[in-house]
């Protein structure tokens, strides 16, 4: 049975054996070992020409060749954070938009003569107020601020509010009394406001998506710049070390050359002095011989002259 690595090589070379089949089926699971192994191999392969490899090689910086432009992997925090936050953000924004619409609706605005009581939307019988009303301020005969007849307060015999809402929810806002037309208009207005709010929420969502995209791009760029900066710092450190080493070597080489040259010059000077001394001695010797010869030449003729002089 082949190892996982052999099976992976067989798969990557397009083989049709059992190992390749096994890897292909494992790759269906993105969190499986095979998929994670390939992801790690991709990252390591991209790192083949990364700056830290050059640093590890101890290579000096020089004319950099053509390095393929492999985009750096996205920051993992960003990859995890945004999908995780996304549904919560959408829910919060939608809820906020609906609440804003409900609170800014004119049918829910409080009347100046009814302090506190108009702040609540009073549902029909058996319903449940959308906003809490203090029990002390609430009267069964109080009319609804928008013309809705006020229902009686729920008694103990009434079914639980939650169940009633579930059963009677479509009827909760049905118009009653003489103001049906006005209420229908209000409902239409409410609908149009709701649509406008939804459109606004969609626009906000679009802006948020754009911002997220920009933010992601900035993070990628920041990541890339960070790596580049680190690489440049490493290169600068390497350069400084090399310059220092080269300075030392150069000083050493110059010192060695000067020492050698000085020694050679001294040796030559010594030789020249010796030659000069030898030459001087030879010259003195020659001078002595010359003097002797001169002396001899001058003494002998005088003696002969004395002998030959007639007496």
């Amino acid at each position: 049975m082949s190892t996982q690595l052999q099976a992976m090589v067989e798969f990557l070379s397009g083989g049709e054996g059992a190992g390749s089949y096994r890897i292909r089926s494992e790759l269906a699971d993105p969190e499986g070992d095979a998929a994670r192994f390939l992801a790690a191999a991709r990252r390591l392969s991209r790192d083949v020409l990364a700056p830290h490899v050059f640093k590890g090689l101890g290579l000096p910086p020089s004319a950099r060749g053509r390095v393929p432009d492999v985009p750096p992997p996205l920051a993992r925090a960003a990859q995890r954070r945004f999908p995780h936050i996304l549904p919560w953000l959408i829910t919060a924004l939608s809820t906020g938009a609906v609440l804003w619409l409900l609170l800014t609706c004119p049918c829910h605005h409080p009347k100046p003569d009814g302090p506190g009581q108009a702040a609540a939307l009073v549902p029909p019988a058996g319903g449940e107020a959308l906003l809490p009303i203090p029990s002390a301020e609430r009267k069964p005969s109080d009319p609804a601020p928008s013309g809705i007849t006020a229902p009686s307060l729920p008694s103990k015999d009434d079914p639980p509010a939650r169940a009633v809402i579930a059963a009677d929810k479509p009827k909760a806002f049905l118009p009653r009394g003489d103001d049906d037309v006005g209420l229908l208009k209000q409902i239409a207005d409410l609908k149009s406001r709701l649509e406008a709010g939804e459109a606004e929420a969609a626009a906000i969502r679009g802006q948020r998506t754009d911002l997220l995209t920009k933010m992601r791009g900035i993070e990628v760029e920041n990541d890339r710049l960070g790596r580049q900066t680190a690489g440049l710092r490493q290169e600068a450190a390497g350069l400084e070390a090399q310059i220092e080493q080269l300075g030392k070597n150069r000083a050493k080489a110059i010192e060695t050359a000067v020492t050698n040259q000085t020694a050679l010059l001294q040796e030559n000077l010594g030789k020249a002095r010796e030659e000069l001394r030898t030459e001087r001695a030879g010259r003195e010797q020659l001078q002595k011989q010359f003097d002797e010869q001169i002396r001899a030449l001058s003494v002998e003729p005088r003696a002969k002259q004395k002998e030959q002089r007639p007496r």
Partner: protein
Amino acid sequence: MKAATLTDAEGCPTYKHVYEKIIREHFAASPLDDVEDESFAREVAKRFRKAPLTLCSRSIGKWINRKLREAKWTQQGLADRIGVDRSAVAYWIRGGNITLDNLAQVLIEFKSQWSELPIPARQEMAIAAYLAALTFVRERLAGAPPGKPLDRVSFWCLYHLLSERFWAEALRLSVPDLLSTEAQRVAQAVEASLGQRPPTAVSVASLQRLTAEWAGAWLVCIGSIPCAWATQ
């Protein structure tokens, strides 16, 4: 096998355990004959370091030869000037390693500066290092020297093929059109990396042959060298 320590930008230990597990499993199933795991990693790193030095020495040797021709000196003349044997000068010219002291002496004799020394581009040295290490790993894995050494075109093919997910995805889906498209993408990327059209055509069949022969060495090699050095 020395543990591959993948440093993640976010500090997340994501995939390194799976990678290590699979590489370890392979070496546990088919252990190397006479090489211990630790020394195997050391040998790979040694090859990885040695190749750039060889490349630099070759360039320096060519430079010394050129300067000798320009100065109309003989190898013996240079050897006499710096006090070495003539065979040493011949060794340097052939691409042998030269010590820093001797190099300084050569520079003084030629009245040259350090900046005049030719140093190959970093990328060239890194690729040479990978080629040496890959050849060594391939030889150890297969138990025999590879029939054909890995050239630069093949290196770039493997690099672009294994740096992206498209090839594996096309194989997983078994769609021939996707494989052809991916082969075209790799061919274009290799051309861009080399700066010229590759001498041999890059096709699906050639990529399959290449991965069958070299992908194992690649997967072991990339886990042994750069990751460990990144954290040292």
